[in-house]
């Protein structure tokens, strides 16, 4: 039975990359008869992200205050829950996640039935691999995650993700705000959801700036470590 997939695209100042990403996304054919819809969440961009997005056949959710990546993604997930979608997939607005890779995540989900599928850069050494220090940080979170959840997720900071109905319901109710990716994995596994990774090829960002820049990376590590620890001891 064919289902509905919502592509959740959090955007902050992405007027440059959306005209490249959206046509490619909307012409993407999904496997197993899935129907594709996309929602753009504009997190108070200072450029013309909304106007650019409205040129395409996508839903635009315009946040009145800047919520950060976690709050923006959660808005899209809530939209998916309210509109009865079978799957929600997060795709970053900067073009790092090529739409043609969506099919891999969906196929994996359909074959195995896991609740959350993560597109990983590191299972195969192909495509954009990001800088040395960033990979060091990702390695650290891999071990921390393994320690806390017992699941071996290599690319725990990847924002290229698929959520099934159970994961949508959970994330719509509670999703971390700042730097949500590694922390949400702890939340998912505490709730008994299955998380798995598939290899994807990522591109370097086509425009915009990473939310994690050099001076903030230490803060990032400390904040996420604390958040993961407290998510771990919190009752689900």
């Amino acid at each position, binding site marked *: 039975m064919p289902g509905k997939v919502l592509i959740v695209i959090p955007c902050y100042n992405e007027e440059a990359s959306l005209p490249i990403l959206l046509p490619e996304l909307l012409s993407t054919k999904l496997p197993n008869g899935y129907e594709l819809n996309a929602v753009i969440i504009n997190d108070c961009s200072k450029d013309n992200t909304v106007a650019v997005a409205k040129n395409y056949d996508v839903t635009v*959710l315009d946040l*009145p*205050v800047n919520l950060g990546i976690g*709050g923006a993604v*959660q*808005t899209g997930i*809530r939209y998916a829950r309210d509109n009865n979608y079978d799957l929600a997939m997060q795709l970053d607005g900067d073009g790092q996640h090529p739409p043609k890779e969506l099919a891999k995540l969906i196929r994996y989900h359909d074959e195995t039935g896991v609740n959350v599928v993560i597109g990983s850069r590191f299972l195969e050494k192909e495509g954009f691999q990001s800088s040395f220090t960033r990979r060091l940080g990702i390695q650290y979170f891999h071990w921390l995650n393994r320690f806390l959840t017992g699941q071996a997720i290599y690319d725990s900071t990847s924002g290229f993700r698929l959520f099934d109905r159970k994961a949508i319901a959970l994330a719509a109710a509670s999703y971390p*705000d700042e730097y949500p990716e590694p922390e949400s994995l702890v939340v998912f596994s505490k709730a008994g959801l299955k998380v798995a990774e598939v290899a994807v090829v990522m591109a370097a960002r086509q425009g915009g700036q990473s939310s994690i820049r050099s001076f903030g990376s230490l803060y990032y590590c400390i904040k996420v470590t604390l958040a993961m620890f407290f998510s771990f001891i919190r009752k689900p």
Partner: protein
Amino acid sequence: MLRIQFITIAVNILFVLYISRLIIKGKLREEYAIVWVMCTLFLLLFSFWTDGLELLRKLTGVVVAANLVFTGFIFAILVYLLHLSVVASKLYNDNKKLGQEISLLKEQFNKHLEDKKS
């Protein structure tokens, strides 16, 4: 009465009046005013009862009375700051929910308008 007693009592009364004014004008919610009113009452008590501090000092075993005052008030301020952080966190969460809700409603509203037009 000593001169210093007059000064502290006068400052205290002015402070209470200012807090009352803020509450009356709706600029300060009563639940946040409680701690300030309590502090003022506490100061007022020891402005009148000057031997009280000496008694507390002996009871707690602190050598210099001033240190007891500093320790007590710094601790109270820390607790109140923590309380304010809790308030800020709650406000953040409420704001987030409101923002998400508004964006979802706006989308529904626009869709409804378009449906009506066509």
